[in-house]
């Protein structure tokens, strides 16, 4: 078995619903659909934060002023 993939168990009824849903769509298979939905869900859970310190910010603002990007 390919080590890049693993098995998960989902109810057969759900599997069949997904099979129905993707008929005629661009999604090729049930695993592709589940992978897409999971990636979308996980990325939405990421929290947005500011990643710079006050000190960084002040230094950068000086440069941006000198270059004419801010007044």
């Amino acid at each position, binding site marked *: 078995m390919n080590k890049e993939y693993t098995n998960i168990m989902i109810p057969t009824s759900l599997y069949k619903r997904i099979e129905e849903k993707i008929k005629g769509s661009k999604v090729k298979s049930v695993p592709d659909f589940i992978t897409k939905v999971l990636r979308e869900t996980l990325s939405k859970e990421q929290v947005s934060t*500011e990643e710079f310190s006050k000190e960084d910010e002040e230094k950068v603002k000086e440069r941006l002023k000198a270059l*004419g990007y801010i007044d």
Partner: protein
Amino acid sequence: MIRPHGGKLIERILRQKEKESILERAEELPSLKLDGELISDVENIACGVFSPLEGFLGQSEYRNVLNHMRLTNDLPWPIPIVFDVREEEAEKLREGQEIILIGEGEKPVAVLYLEEKYEYDKEELAEKVFQTKDASHPGVAKVLRMKEVLLGGKIDLIQESATPFYRYKLKPLETRILFKEKGWRTVVGFQTRNTPHIGHEYVQKTALTFTDGIFVNPVIGRKKKGDFKDEVIIASYEELIRNYYLKERAVIVILQMEMRYAGPREAIFHAIIRKNFGCTHIIIGRDHAGVGNFYPPYAAQDIFEEFPDLEIMPLFFKSFYFCKKCDSVVNEKTCPHPPSDHINFSGTKIREMLIQGKIPPSELMRPEVAKIIIGYDNPFVE
């Protein structure tokens, strides 16, 4: 603010003391020479443009990127960022060594912490990234010229390279602070390697209608013969923005990087880069990052279906043209008139006029922009 790709903006720039320490030892360490494009890659890694990469890809990451367009932690990453060396150079190097990377003028640019060296299949690399092995594709031709062994490992930047475009070179940390300072919550990125015609302006302003600001981000670096020179692109955009944009809604910042012409894969790559700069949206037009007829016209839009976790939102645009009946710029969704009423924004046609020193009609290009281009003796790459 949108998170950097992978959650953290990478910064691998040596501070003064660390720099002095490595430079003291530099003569005892092995060294390798970098060409201009690899120097750009090193700088883009070090400054966070390629976050979350901290260096050149090792073999398992390389294979994952090639086969799945993702890093081994499942994060989208479509283009292998690799460092190629000759077999005889690789033989002299050992894993675990620090290697000084030398730039132009024999100046130390960065240090590579060599983690692994590995062989690869050039044809496989070309076919997977560019979807062709045809050597007339500039990206394929470059891969076929690459050296035989790849080196993987983290890097630290010793010295940024000088650029005549210093005024326009900002790091992702700086653009993020710029956007915050301007109060932009949503920012649309526009990738370009051309001077702007009316079609470009229309796309940008349509996107700007739905966002707080536009981030015009021309790619500066090696281009194809016949492309506009870097300084011409920057000057023409400056003129366009000065005359036709609100100063508080548009910024121009360069991206020093080679165009790979990888079409759909490169569109994802461009989106990741703009996300790192702090863009929440990116404009993806017809044949984005394409060359010749190697990719279907909208393949670079379709590929986003495979990346629901990119976080930056693509804004897809069809072709725009000028309609004589509507007397405005239109597209297939907004204009009822037949093609005989349409004037296409043909880059070739505009270029021919500019070469002859003629100002194109104002429905194709702003006269102020055309004058700037014509003002150059030779605005094109030879």
